[in-house]
């Protein structure tokens, strides 16, 4: 019966229309006006000159490092329970979204949006606040006067204040972990771009790819490719906004992997100055408040660290016994002054080696590194030690306690370990 057959037409047509709509939407939109042709050097200059300091936007960051992925569990669980190290590692797995608001060099707010929770960093002039909604805790950092005009150089603790973790269990807390340079706050395209532009030299081939569109803006695609084959990095692509020169997206491609190993980019961006109220933060009632100590700024090596200000503690809330030291600061570095890292190779093939620490510290260190569930799962036993292998970086923990790190294949690390 034809009539009955006709009745099913909508049921077939609706999915077809939706599929067509999705297909059309997935075709990258062509920018209205093609950007003027520019040489790689000109794009680099454009990028270097960019002076966008007022914007608001949403950044999506994703990592496909080959580390084991933890399934997204219920709303109440989360990396916060694992303490500081997990917060750093967190950005090396999965996807994260953050909103970024900036107005001038000294006003900034970053909101890392977790499931049913949020972590905020708010800076207004000399005041920096950290807030974690999971346990309603806030931390305050007063920047010394001379730092007030430093753009973006907010010293960042490795983790937003979470529940205090057992001491001695936190590899990220007082160790200069060169493996994980990622700041605890979501790395912005800006941060990543700066990181990788620092290594542009003769060992890198710089090209400009076809224009792309990011967050509705036409952008140049600056591609940095290592000339050597001896590195895990295949290519780094930076989307440079054609108008302002602002980096809109940075993708790091690893060899033999289709998806970017690391990518951070804007999904929406507005160059209008955000509302001023966004940068106002007052610790909410009932929050646990911590006063963080300012680390000595490397610009003034002679300056003594400022004493902590024991202010702003809510009555009825037990404050933490001592103000937190910003880890990774000189205090912890000097602590291990004897440890001079060795550097072999150069450019993309650099291998950094950390000698074994005396008096069994190394064993404790390796042990604590491997105590992290994520790391211990990822570490495999290889001749001469254990290897933490990711798409971009390999870390070799030798049996005698030395650590070798590099963006190189594992064989090179073993060679470096054998040569010393």
């Amino acid at each position: 019966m034809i009539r009955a057959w006709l009745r099913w037409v909508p049921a077939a047509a609706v999915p077809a229309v939706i599929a067509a709509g999705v297909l059309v939407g997935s075709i990258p939109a062509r920018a209205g006006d093609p950007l003027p042709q520019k040489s790689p050097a000109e794009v680099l200059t454009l990028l270097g000159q960019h002076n966008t300091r007022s914007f608001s936007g949403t950044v999506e960051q994703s990592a496909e490092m080959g580390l084991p992925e933890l399934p997204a569990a219920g709303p109440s669980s989360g990396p916060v329970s694992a303490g500081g190290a997990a917060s750093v590692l967190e950005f090396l797995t999965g996807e994260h979204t953050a909103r970024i608001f900036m107005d001038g060099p000294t006003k900034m707010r970053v909101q890392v949006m977790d499931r049913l929770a949020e972590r905020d960093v708010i800076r207004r002039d000399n005041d920096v606040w950290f807030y974690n909604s999971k346990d309603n805790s806030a931390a305050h950092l007063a920047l010394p006067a001379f730092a007030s005009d430093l753009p973006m150089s907010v010293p960042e603790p490795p983790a937003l204040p979470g529940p205090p973790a057992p001491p001695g269990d936190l590899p990220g807390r007082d160790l200069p972990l060169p493996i994980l340079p990622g700041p605890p706050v979501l790395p912005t395209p800006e941060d990543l771009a700066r990181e990788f532009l620092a290594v542009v030299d003769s060992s890198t081939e710089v090209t400009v790819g076809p224009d792309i569109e990011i967050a509705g803006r036409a952008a140049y695609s600056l591609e940095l490719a290592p000339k050597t084959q001896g590195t895990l990095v295949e290519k780094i692509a930076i989307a440079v906004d054609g108008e302002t020169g602002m980096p809109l997206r940075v993708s790091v491609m690893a060899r033999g992997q289709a998806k970017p190993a690391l990518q951070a980019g804007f999904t929406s961006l507005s160059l209008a100055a955000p509302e001023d109220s966004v940068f106002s933060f007052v610790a909410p009632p009932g929050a646990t408040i911590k006063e963080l100590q300012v680390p000595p700024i490397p610009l003034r090596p002679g300056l003594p660290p400022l004493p902590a200000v024991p202010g702003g503690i809510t009555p009825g809330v037990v404050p933490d016994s001592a103000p937190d030291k910003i880890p990774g600061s000189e205090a912890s570095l000097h602590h291990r002054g004897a440890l001079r890292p060795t550097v072999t190779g150069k450019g993309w093939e650099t291998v950094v080696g950390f000698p074994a620490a005396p008096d069994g510290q190394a064993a404790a260190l390796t042990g604590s590194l491997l105590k992290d569930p994520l790391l211990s799962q990822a570490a495999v036993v290889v001749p001469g030690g254990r290897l933490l292998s990711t798409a971009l970086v390999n870390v070799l923990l030798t049996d005698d306690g030395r650590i070798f790190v590099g963006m190189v294949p594992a064989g090179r690390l073993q060679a470096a370990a054998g040569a010393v």
Partner: protein
Amino acid sequence: MPNSASGAPSSLSLLGSELKTLFRRRRTAAMLVALAAIPVLIAAAVRLSSSVPAGRGPAFLDRISQNGLFVAVTAMLVSVPLFLPLTIGVVAGDTIAGEASLGTLRYLLVAPAGRVRLLLVKYAGALAFCIAAPVTVALAGAAIGASLFPVGPVTLLSGDVVQPPEAALRLVLIAAYLAVSLAGLAAIGLFLSTLTVVPVGAMAATVVLSVVSQVLDQLPQLEWLHPWLFTHYWFGFADVLRQPVLWDSFASNAMLQAGYIAVFGALAYGRFVTKDVLS
């Protein structure tokens, strides 16, 4: 079409009588009472126990003793995965199959109401329940919270503090978000309801589908599928509690649910207008 035939009841009166039947049923009332009991239980438990340590239990639970309005938020959070879908499944699964099993579907169609219109009216009734269910939880939560705990400025996820009127608005937004979230499930239930004359089958299938979809959403291996699952944005209502409000998930959720309504509405239409109504 029978719609234009003389003597056909107007769509409004048809909808009116459908809503009356739906909300006068004891079963509907019982489900709404059960939903209202969730915040009451939560509030009583928090009131009677010692303070909840931060970071334990469902999100926001530790905030309740400081601010009663969080009872409503916590209750909505707790009822999203199962309780709300359960009640929607019962209502939506019953729409057509319930009439068929009672033998009243024949009479509804004998009256020149038209099958399409009947389907639309039934879906509108289910939608009304989709709105009523989260609103019930929110109202009961706010009421019991206000009576057992102090009500004051509310701390949002971003750490900003808003006054109670603004916070009440955010509660309404959450309830609206949940109502939108459940609309797709109601369409699925409507379609399943046209397939059978056993209402319990359609109800169970609807609820099971919502659970299956949530389980699939947890598996990282199926990441490509996640944006297509109708439960994917269910917990996105937290974005309403950010400052400034993040509307992205609200919009994506509405788009997704509209897609589900279109697909399963069309399927239900295809099935229902070609169906031989024997009972």
